[in-house]
């Protein structure tokens, strides 16, 4: 153990207290704002402690308030967002693990062609090719569909690269042994590779779930119908400066509802999530 002076530890505590304040405060403040009335919010400064309107705001928001503004109820928005996050997370994991498996454990003609075909997309987020991708979606008639919301976002190679990195650390003797046992590629995949990848899959799931949940530009363009919108999009639609005023108290409630699920996922799954990150880092 390394000796640490009392002063040094005190300093550490002070910095961490500040850190937590910086990191958590904006979220805490949203929570506070969601319990105040519109008039209180509109006349700064807003108190630092929760107000008396918790039940009123939340029940208004949940039972029709958000729907009146955005056209659809909040449960529908949350459902859409959830479907989107889950579909992207699961879809991308399935697709990536299969293609990484092919690239690492098989030798076949044009292997490198496929490799580059996939990995050139590595860092190219959908934002960069947003307009042409949108046109393609229109041509395919995928506007306002879950397919359109999710499939294109699975097209990047990041998860594939992660699995590839991991698979390459698996000793060749394991494959050798499996083959001597008469195990075909499918059994090897199912009985050896998948169990070994469990932590990686869990970490990826968290990352991709968050990625899907927090999408903004894509669903903004891909949905015309309100009942296909996500929470994040509905939030933007609620903030309107044209003629009708913004119901900030309801906006804040919606913010809380939009933040809560992904925060829960990260916090509850943090053990696997962090472990997965750290392991893939190595």
């Amino acid at each position: 153990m390394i000796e640490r002076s009392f002063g040094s530890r005190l300093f550490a505590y002070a910095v961490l207290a500040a850190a937590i304040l910086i990191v958590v405060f904006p979220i805490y403040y949203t929570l506070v704002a969601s319990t105040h009335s519109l008039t209180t919010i509109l006349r700064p400064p807003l108190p630092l402690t929760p107000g008396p309107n918790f039940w009123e705001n939340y029940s208004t928001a949940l039972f029709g308030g958000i729907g009146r503004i955005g056209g659809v109820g909040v449960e529908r928005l949350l459902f859409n967002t959830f479907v989107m996050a889950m579909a992207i997370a699961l879809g991308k994991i399935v697709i990536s693990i299969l293609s990484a498996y092919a690239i690492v454990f098989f030798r076949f003609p044009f292997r490198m062609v496929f490799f580059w075909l996939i990995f050139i997309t590595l860092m190219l987020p959908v934002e960069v090719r947003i307009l042409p991708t949108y046109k393609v979606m229109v041509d395919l008639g995928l506007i306002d569909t879950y397919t359109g919301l999710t499939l294109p976002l699975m097209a990047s190679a990041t998860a594939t690269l992660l699995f590839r990195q991991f698979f390459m650390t698996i000793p060749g003797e394991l494959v050798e042994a499996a083959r001597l046992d008469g195990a075909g590629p499918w059994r090897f995949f199912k009985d050896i590779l998948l169990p070994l990848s469990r932590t990686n899959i869990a970490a990826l799931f968290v990352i991709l779930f968050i990625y899907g949940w927090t999408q903004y530009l894509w669903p903004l363009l891909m949905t015309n119908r309100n009942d296909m919108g996500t929470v994040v999009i509905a939030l933007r639609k609620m903030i309107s400066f044209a003629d009708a005023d913004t119901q900030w108290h309801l906006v804040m409630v919606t913010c809380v509802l939009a933040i809560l699920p992904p925060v829960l996922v990260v916090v509850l799954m943090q053990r696997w999530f962090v472990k997965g990150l750290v392991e893939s880092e190595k």
Partner: protein
Amino acid sequence: MRFQGLAASAAVTFTLLSTTSAFAVTEISWWHAMTGANNEVVETLSREFNESQSDYKVVPVFKGTYPDTLNAGIAAFRAKQPPHIIQVFDVGTGVMMGAEAAIKPVADILSMGGTAFDKSQYLPGIVAYYSKPDGTMLSFPYNSSSPILYYNKDLFQKAGLDPETPPKTWPEVFDAARKVKASGASNCGYTSTWLTWIGLENFAAWNNQQYGTKQNGLGGLDVELTINTPVFVKHFQNIADLAKENVFRYGGRTSEAKQLFLSGECAIMTESSGGLGDVVKSGMNYGLGQLPYYPDVEGAPQNTTPGGASLWVMAGHDEEEYEGVAAFFSFLSQTKIQQRLHEVSGYLPVTLAAYEATKKSGFYDKNPGREIPIRQMMGKEPTDNSRGVRLINLPAVRDIQNEEFEKMLAGEQTAQQALDNAVKRGNAAIEQAVNR
């Protein structure tokens, strides 16, 4: 393989969830940008129309902000799935007019419904703005508004100003604003929403100044802006000076500044008459006045121009569906509907009959401020400078103007420089858009 099975069943679920059901009656889709109380009006109108007959069903869809709605409409047209009716804000008018193959003139639609279309029934100022140079009405005015002056009576009292007399001219406004600040009644004397729409487009009409060549764009596409003439420069230098003294506060490019007025921070505000609903709801002690003008400018005050939005009918549908649209527009034109729309929303009535009926009902005696925008628009026969502004890319031009204003208000340039730049950059953008 298990995973592929999973993917397949997921795909099936997607398809099931994304199919829409069909109706026996002819559906008319109406894309709009109305939120809050105005959204409820849209829903009510559609419901009433649907209950009044059984052939057609109007389905209103909220599409987000005005620009979002327009973009969605354009995208949908390109995808060959346009809505029947789309609400397009005033600045989008030029965009829509430039795309003749994408729209159906409302005049044609209305005469399809069997009833001959009589233009004289409609408020002339509004109809002129939404018509082609040859007089064909292209879109149906739904929510029209005009900028007026709002002031906080309590703050006026505190500052020692007469709370019953709104300032009439710009010099009076600036004086009052400075007094409010100097007396300590509040931190900010004057603010304005929509500096472009109020400070340039309506300012030009109201003070009878030319905004651009070709009758401000109503007479042709290749417009050159003329907003850097002395009257404009004087006005914006005044505002820049006020900003420097912290008497004027900038709120943002659209209606954000309303927040500053509602919170009691600013004593005077110029804003759309359509924003009245929120001011009323806030419970503050407010007063209304007409839009200020410069008394030393010849011909001022002239008339203001309509803002807000109108309903466009998009091309690419069946005859039968257009008949439904026609029926809906006739429904909307009814005097009692227009009168109610006007009284509830603060938007202007579209027909003369509705205006007269509202007058007769004694509504304006109880709400004197509500007639101000109509009087402003109807006061005088419009001149070439005051029929409104129409540019093929007005949204982009407004962006440019806002950028220059922001630099000016931040003290980085004078009003002359800001407006010169706005003209130079605006002309280049227009030229490029026309040749696109």
